[in-house]
């Protein structure tokens, strides 16, 4: 009876395949001559097999959950979308290589309202020359129309005291003179 108790203590290791060869041999030898222990071990072995079958059933159920999750994550048309995007990118790049993009030339309108040919070159503005007197200062002003040139001619007016000291030609007084001059321009 004591031997049965010792053998049954090794039941878990025997079921878990953790018993070493010596213990397994002892158990097998005992089972060969003890019907009660054989029934018990076989009973537990059967439960173990059923647990494995049950586990496999659960794994099959889990597979359907996983596949459902994978399907819901990626819709069926997702691969098609990827292929279409790749085709568009390749086609676009190919077109750019074959015929680089050129901006459409704006339509030019003549003075009389007629459309000018695309290769029409507008006449270059005539060069002009103005004579700036010595006591004037010419300041070109930007204009929106390239055919119109605006030049402001400023008369340089110096304050009387600075004009008198101008002959001294003191280098240190130059900045203040220039400053006054600029102020004069602004006031003009």
């Amino acid at each position, binding site marked *: 009876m004591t031997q049965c108790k010792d053998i049954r203590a090794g039941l878990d290791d025997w079921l878990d395949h953790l018993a070493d060869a010596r213990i397994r041999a002892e158990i097998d030898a005992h089972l060969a001559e003890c019907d009660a222990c054989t029934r018990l071990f076989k009973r537990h072995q059967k439960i173990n097999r*059923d647990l494995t079958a*049950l586990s496999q059933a*659960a794994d*099959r159920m889990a597979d359907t959950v996983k596949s459902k999750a994978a399907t819901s994550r990626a819709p069926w048309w997702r691969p098609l979308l990827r292929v279409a995007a790749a085709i568009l990118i390749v086609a676009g790049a190919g077109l750019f290589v074959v015929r680089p993009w050129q901006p459409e030339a704006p339509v030019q309108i003549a003075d009389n309202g007629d459309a000018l040919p695309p290769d029409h070159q507008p006449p270059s503005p005539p060069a002009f020359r103005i004579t700036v007197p010595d006591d004037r200062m010419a300041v070109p002003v930007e204009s929106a129309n390239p055919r119109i040139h605006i030049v402001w001619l400023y008369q340089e007016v110096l304050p009387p005291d600075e004009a008198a000291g101008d002959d001294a030609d003191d280098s240190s007084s130059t900045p203040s003179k220039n400053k006054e001059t600029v102020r004069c321009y602004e006031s003009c």
Partner: protein
Amino acid sequence: MIGLALKIVWNRHDAEEIVQEAFKLTLTNGPRLPHERYEPWMFRTVANLCLNLRRRRRPEPLTEWTDIPQTASPADRLQRIEQLDNLRTAIAKLPGQQRIALVLRTMEQMSYTDIAEIMALSVAAVRSHVHFARQRLAELLDADTMEAQS
């Protein structure tokens, strides 16, 4: 994770909810100790959520999930499904710790060391849980058989 949850609750909707809840808990109460690993923590969380599930749905029938040879007669198929269903019911009657230990050992095929880490118990305690779970399971199944015979 979904496999473990299914082996305890046997309902796909419940199992999905449990796993989602476990991932949500990971964000708020994830493993905090420096030596604590993520995987055992997740297994423990899923197992605890399975045991504490309040609004439990009915277990799904095993009919379409059981692998039975095509040559088996309809009566044999029915008997086999009934056997597995009885086993499932008996497992559900086990105390929580015993149930988790048994499922992790015999169905998830985990080592006693890994189970001890998941359950935050000693290896000896886990072996004890598995041992008593097996004994109790055999008793419950024998009682079912006796009942069916009488």
